[in-house]
Structures are given as C-alpha cells and as structure tokens.
C-alpha cells in the first residue's frame, strides 16, 4: 500500500506579515485569511521586539516598519479583532519579549471568555539565535534562559496546545551555517533550554514538555540536501529525547517544524527568478512525508528590493496552494523510503552534526559558546566562504554572477520608475502610534499599573515565574515599554560577541591590488586607513556588517566595528575618538530615511567633516538618490555582491576626500 486511502491534510499556510498599526495589520490578516491562508504569522516591529514603546527615543524611525507595533492589551484587541482565538493558529516571531506578547494574547483570550487551554500557536522564544544572528536580545544569557524556561513551564501546564518555543535553525542558515552547523548549534540550544526547564520546573517526566517543543527551519536551494538535513534533524532530535531526557512516547519524540524558505538567497537582480527559487526551496520541506513541515510561510519575490505588497504575498501563498491542492504530493507515503542515496547523505549529515553537538558540549554548552564567541566565529567563517564563492563564481547565482543579460522587467516598471514595486510605510504611521500610546497611558488605572509593575519587578527578582506576573500586568494596561524597562532594571542588559575578531577567512589573492592601494594610501596619510562600521537603529541583522568588517580587514583597513543598536550620537562619538577616515552604516529595517540623516547631522554636530559616509542595506533606488542628495557618498544594496570592489571603492572615497586621487 503506497497510496494513502485519504490524502494527508496540508500543512498550515501562513504569511509573515504586519506593519504600521494593529488596525492596518488586522485588515491585512483578514484579507489573507479570506484568500485561503490557514494560520497567522505575526511580524512585530523592532520596538515591540525590544521592549520599547513607540515614544521611546530609540524607537524613532522604527515604529511599524518591519512589523506591527503592539504596545498594550488595546493593540492586541485591535490586532485580533474579528479573528476567533479558539480556532486560529497564531505564530508570533517574538523572542526577548516573548513572555510579554504571550501574556497579552492570554489576557485577550480570557477577556473574550476563551480559556487559555484552547489557544493554539507558537511563540518563537529562541534567544540563543538572537545572540548569534538576529540581534533582538535584551538580557544576559542566563537571565534570558530563565524567562524562556518560565514560558515553557507555564505553557505546558496551562496552555497545553501552544508551542512555547520554536528552536530556530532558520537564522543560523541566514548567518551562514552549513546544514551540519545548522543542526548542531540548534540542538546545542535545545540542550541548554531543556536542561534549564528540567531544573527550573523540577520536572521528572519530560514527555509532555518534549512533545510541545518545535522548530523553525530554513530551506535553501540545494533541496535534495535539505531533505536529507531534515531527516538527519529528526533522527538526532529523537536520539536526544530518548538518551538525554528519557522520553519514550513516539508522539512526543516527533520532530515538528515550521518553515520559512530562504530569503537570504533571493536576489535583487532579475527578481522574477526568485519565484522559481521559492518554489524549489519549498520542495525541500514538503517532498518527504516523514519530515514534512507542519506550517509553511514563503517570502515574496521582491524581498531583496524592499517590503512586499499584499499582492506579492498573495503570489507566494498561491505557490503553496498550487503545490498542496493541484499536485498529488499529499497522496503518497514517504517517497524517499528505501533510497540508498538519501539514506547515505542523511547518515553523513547526522554523524557530522552530532560530532559538533559534542564539541559544543565539551566547550561548556551553547550558552558558554555564545559568550566565548565560538559559535558565532564558525558562522561568520562559513558566511565569508559562501560570499567569496559567489564573488568568484564557483557558486552560481543566475542573474547575479552569470546570465546577467536581461530585457527590461515589466514587473519593475511603474510610473515612478520602479519605486512602486514595493510597499512603502506611511511616515505618518509612527506619529499616530506615539499619540495612541500616550492616550492609552492617560486613561488607565495608574494604581493598578504601579502595583502590577512592582509585583513584576519583585517577583522576577525573587526568581518567580514571569508569566502570571506578566498576565496580571497586561490586564492592568501596562505597556510593552514599561514591561521591558521593569525587566531591564531587574535582569540587566547584554551585548553579544560579534564573532568578527576570532573568525579566520581563507586566502584570497584577488584582494591583493586593493591591499596595495590601501597600504599606499596609509603611507600618504601617515597612518593606516581606519573605518568605522556600525548599525544605527534597532535592527540586529548584523551578518552583512560583519562580512564588510571582515573583508575590510582583509583589504588592509583598520576597522572599528561597533556592532548593533548604536545611536547616531554614539556613532559620531566613535568617529571622533577613533579618528576614522570613513564611516560605513548598515540598515536593513527600512528605517534608513530616518536614521541615516540623523547620523549625518550628529557627525556634523560633532565636528566630523571630510569623512565620507557610506550606507548598505535593502534600500530602494529612489531612497538611495535622496540619501546621496543629503550627503551620503555611496549606497550599496544587495545588487553589490562583490565585496572586493566595494573595498576598492572605499579606498577611492578616502583618497578623494583627502585630495589624493
């Protein structure tokens, strides 16, 4: 019997979305559900992810940009208006503030008379990968891990159909991880979290807990290898459950995951080709029944250009629907069963991954390896290798490093010259949110707010579970920023290692001419050419900035890498104190129009002149021209994949600034 009597139920279909305001996002969700989407995937904006209200100084320019701002229970009400909580499956990409957003969701359910026990969905809640790749961490590792284990213990007891954590291999792949590293470092995180849960919850039988843990993975273009990666992942997850945690129930041992296929590999050049890439990557996570994704969300074809519009997201949803409903994919048992090739490849990935799991354990576990920078360094190295392969053409990317000739694309044609092929967030949205949160604070019971915040601070300080305290605060009308500030007081803040210092990259002869130029320039200037690389704003996607820093060192520059979340004033201070010759900024959150001019002003105010400023990021053409008019020397976008020529460019800019060219 190879054909199934009843076809398997399709996976949950979602679209990662949210922007501007809770109201605007709610209409988007309802429209998406009407188009056949079967679950929600909420994208929060960066202030919400980092525990700031829209009127916080650091939130400027970031409100409603990469997701929806949710500042209090009122926003959660508006966000889920008209959507039944008892039947909806809601996934929230939320990490450092996961207990808070989970608390708001539970408070709303109770208010609507839906018991928390009926809720289904996921909080991402994987803080380790935030330190390694995504950057939206707040608290130090040990403190963060305690919050994670609190939510897991609480959910297993009170919200039994909820996935309180999604262990994310997704962002590790984006940071450059090979399939082996992806599995190994994710399982390292699993061990750290599970050990903490077992200790904190005083849990003897881990079956219920283990059965509620799920994964969020990535799928790249090499989809045969991706199938094997997922089979290896499932194999090792089961082994971990049996051997380390004594779980024997096969259902609890099942490897359950959601997926967003690779956004990193999507290209700005000939972006229509991304549609094929998305479909092929989807095959990697759907072809094999035994390790098929439980939930799929697909990026849009134009993500390398800017924010996708509703129509772009619809096109991706249709890809899922065509695959699930038109093909015979769901009618068969696992089609790889008995394949010698797949079995062999799976075995080799699993073996190598387990070896690296053991290496991490020898070095003290995932948390120690985050703090020492060991994992981050390995990821930065892998990413550097990937990028140099694309540059040198040994890894082919159609339309980018080969087959670059193209007829003009009608998809990009629009009356305003291409700028229309993406979504632009109304700049007035931020001001409206600032007013709204201030109005909210005025009309609530201040006494209840103060009491619940005091209780939160005191309780967390004593090591109590953060969830009940947060739910009480949510009901009293506490805001996201107040919750974040209270926990910052008690738990402290953290800055993660950048990984660029310890990473080593392979020999690359092609950089030699640039090196000679940089060395000669240093002789003429009297000291080596010094660059400042930093990321203003709240965006934590540091992979690009790290690769630029690494390559700049390799080109002979002295690089001051300032890491993520620096304010314009801090950047200006560093530029002065370090005496740099050029400043490079990386902004990926879409807030470049606000942040970059602020940095330029801060530099001017600090008396920094004659120092060219360059910007890299996902920056639409029209915005790039506007930034150049404001005084930015160069704007680099994903089209500029050849880092070697960027380095040459930087040297030229410094030469010109000093009248030496």
């Amino acid at each position, binding site marked *: 019997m190879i054909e199934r009597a009843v076809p398997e139920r399709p996976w949950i279909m979602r679209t990662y979305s949210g922007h501007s305001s809770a109201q605007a996002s709610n209409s988007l969700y309802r429209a998406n559900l009407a188009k056949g989407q079967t679950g929600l995937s909420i994208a929060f904006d960066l202030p919400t992810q980092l525990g700031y209200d829209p009127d916080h100084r650091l939130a400027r320019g970031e409100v409603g940009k990469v997701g929806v701002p949710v500042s209090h229970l009122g926003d959660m009400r508006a966000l889920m208006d008209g959507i039944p909580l008892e039947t909806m499956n809601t996934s929230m990409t939320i990490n450092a503030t996961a207990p808070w957003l989970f608390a708001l969701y539970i408070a709303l359910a109770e208010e609507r008379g839906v018991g928390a026990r009926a809720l289904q969905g996921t909080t991402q809640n994987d803080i380790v990968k935030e330190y390694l790749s995504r950057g939206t961490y707040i608290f130090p590792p040990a403190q963060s891990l305690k919050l994670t284990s609190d939510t897991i213990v609480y959910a297993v007891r009170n919200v039994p159909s909820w996935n309180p954590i999604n262990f994310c291999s997704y962002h590790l792949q984006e940071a450059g991880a090979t399939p082996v590293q992806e599995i190994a470092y994710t399982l390292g995180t699993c061990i750290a979290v599970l050990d903490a849960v077992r200790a904190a919850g005083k849990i003897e039988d881990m079956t219920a807990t283990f059965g509620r843990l799920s994964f969020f993975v990535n799928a790249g273009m090499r989809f045969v290898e991706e199938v094997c990666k997922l089979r290896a992942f499932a194999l090792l997850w089961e082994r971990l459950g049996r051997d380390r945690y004594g779980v024997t129930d096969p259902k609890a041992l099942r490897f359950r995951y959601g997926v967003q296929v690779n956004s990193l590999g999507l290209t700005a050049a000939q972006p229509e080709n991304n549609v094929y890439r998305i479909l092929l990557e989807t095959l990697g996570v759907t072809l094999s029944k035994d390790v098929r994704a439980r939930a799929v969300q697909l990026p849009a074809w134009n993500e390398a250009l800017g924010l996708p519009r509703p129509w772009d997201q619809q096109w991706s949803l249709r890809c899922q629907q065509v695959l699930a409903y038109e093909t015979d994919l769901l009618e068969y048992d696992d089609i790889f069963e008995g394949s010698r090739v797949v079995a062999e490849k799976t075995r080799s990935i699993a073996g190598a991954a387990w070896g690296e799991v053991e290496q991490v354990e020898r070095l003290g576990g995932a948390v120690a390896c985050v703090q020492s920078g060991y994992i981050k360094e390995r990821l930065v190295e892998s990413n550097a290798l990937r990028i140099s392969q694309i540059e040198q053409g040994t890894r082919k990317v159609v339309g980018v490093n080969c087959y670059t000739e193209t007829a003009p694309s009608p998809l990009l044609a629009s009356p305003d010259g291409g700028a229309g092929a993406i979504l632009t967030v109304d700049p007035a949205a931020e001001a409206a949110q600032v007013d709204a949160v201030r109005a909210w604070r005025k009309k609530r019971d201040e006494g209840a707010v103060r009491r619940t915040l005091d209780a939160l601070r005191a309780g967390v300080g004593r090591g109590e579970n953060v969830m009940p305290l947060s739910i009480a605060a949510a009901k009293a009308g506490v805001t996201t920023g107040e919750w974040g500030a209270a926990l910052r007081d008690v738990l402290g803040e953290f800055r993660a290692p950048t990984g660029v210092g310890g990473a080593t990259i392979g020999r690359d002869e092609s950089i030699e001419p640039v090196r000679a130029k940089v060395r000669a320039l240093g002789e003429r200037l009297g000291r080596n050419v010094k660059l400042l690389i930093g990321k203003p704003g709240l965006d934590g996607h540091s992979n690009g900035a790290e690769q630029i820093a690494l390559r700049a060192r390799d080109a002979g520059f002295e690089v001051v890498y300032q890491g993520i979340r620096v304010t314009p004033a801090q950047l200006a201070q560093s530029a002065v104190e*370090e005496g740099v010759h050029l400043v490079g900024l990386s902004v990926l959150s879409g807030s470049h129009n606000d942040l970059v001019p602020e940095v330029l002003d801060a530099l001017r105010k600090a008396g920094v002149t004659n120092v060219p400023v360059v910007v890299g990021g996902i920056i639409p053409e029209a915005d790039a021209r506007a930034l150049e008019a404001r005084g930015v020397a160069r704007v680099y976008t994903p089209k500029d994949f050849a880092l070697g020529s960027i380095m040459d460019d930087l040297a030229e800019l410094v030469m010109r600034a000093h009248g030496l060219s």
Partner: protein
Amino acid sequence: MGSADPPEPVEALAAGVRAGSRAAVARALNLVEDRRAQSRPRIAELLRALGGGKPDGHRVGFTGPPGVGKSTLVSALGGELRRRGSTVGVLAVDPSSKRSGGALLGDRVRIETRPEDEGLFVRSLATAGELGGLARAAPASVLVLAAAFDRVLVETVGVGQSETDVEYVVDTVVFVVQPGSGDALQFLKAGIMEVPDVLVVTKADLGRVAQRAMADLQAAVRALGSRETPVVAVSCVAPPQGIEALVDALECHRAGLDLTARRLASRRRHALADFATEHGERGVRALGGRRAAERWLGEQAPGLDVPALVQGLQEQATEG
C-alpha cells in the same frame, strides 16, 4: 581636517588636550600615530608641550591571555572610576593581521560610553606588526591621554610573555586571568612572567572554580616571595562583583609608588629596550654592555623623553 588646511598650532592643540576636549585629544592621537618623517618635529613639540601628563594621574596596563574578559573588565572599571569622579582615557590595543596589515578593532563593542560624557574616552590602536604586543604609537598615545584624563587604562593584545612592553608606559601592571586556565600559574612558576602589581581573576560568578584559581595564584605569588601583590576576583555579569575592590587595590598600589621615580626608571629601561631592538646585542656591546648603558642613562637629565634618550644612546654607541 582636510590635508589642505594649515596645520593647527601645537600649543593650541596641547591646550585642548589638557582641557580634556574630545576633539582635541582625538586630533593629538591622530598626530602621534603619524609615521611620516615630516610629522616628527610636530609630534616631539606636542609631547614637550604636554609635559609628562597630569602629575597626580595614574596609568594602568591590563595584560593577560585573549578571551579572559579584559575589555569587559576595563569597561566596568571605567564606569566605576567615572562614578568616583575621575576622568578616564582608554587605549585598547588589538593585533594587526600579518597578511593584510589590516585590523579589527572590536573592543568598542564592549566598552560602554555616553556621547554626552566627555570624561570617558576610548581609542583603539592596531599593533601594526610591532613585537611586544604594543603598538609603536602606544607610548606617545598614553602620554596624550595622560595629559587629558585622570586615569589611563591600557588594554593590550594579551599574548603572554611578549606582553612586557606595557610596563614601560604604565605605573601599574594588572595581569588578568580566568579560572581554570592555569596560564598565569605556568608563567609565574616558569619565571616567564614577572610578578605583576595586581592579579585579577575574572568570572568570579563561577564560584568555586574562581575561588580555587584565586587561592592557587595567591600561593604562587607568596612562593615567589611577593607578599604584597593583591589578587582580586571580579565578575562583570550583573550584579557585578569585585570592581570596587579592584579600584581600591589600584589606588592602594598607586599610593605606595613614587610615581616620578617609577616613570623615570621606566623611560630609561624603555629607551634601552628600544635601542637594543633596533641595534641588537652588537649595539649594546658598543655601549660597553648593558650595565654601562644603564649607568649612562642614570646620569641623564630626568626630563628627557624616550626618543631623546634613544638618540643619546645612539650617539654614545657611535662615539664609543
């Protein structure tokens, strides 16, 4: 500051540095890093104008193996010194890549500064291939910072035995280790490392392991006959521990020093070391041997700086 602008008068620059102006200190550091021959007279003039730095200042060097948490410690210490009302200048030295000549200066990530506070200044410096783990421009940079700030903290690359250079430019040498590595013990016992002025064990939050490391170090230091060397355990994760104790230990060491005498002795030893690096043992023999050279240095005017002393040694060698 475009290359076409007329050079800034050195006296004005020195005044800005002494006033602790962030921009002036930065420009002075740019100048002392300048390798061009044409800049040498201006550098010498600036250093003369700055004098020997604040007379009641204190310069502290931090050495120790990579990864033990020197930057984090320097950051925590800088914060505590600011709270106590001192201004602080930090010089963070990072290695240059031998192959490319480039460098990643990553310490700023770890050190918390506030734009509105000009009393905490951080400058990164690449070794640019210098032996000894200290950059060529480091001694002059320390002098600039010492003229501007009450306390100067120098963080070195931390490669073990070649770290000794830092002792020429600071008043107090702190050796930083983490529990369980055993490096410091090995170095001490093998006599590779001289006993530092203060020993710090980081990661005190590790508890028992840190206590053990501390006890081992105390025993080793005593066995070497140095009863005075304090061993301090610190933790920089919240809540920080031991930072105040470290500040106290540093102040205590400084109070016991005759700073003028120590700095004079350091300058003379530094000059001889520089001379020996440049001219080798043959050069030292031309001076009549190490002993004779030290005697000659001891007879020179106390106000001379290192370049002047090296110059003098070179003349001695040619005459001899």
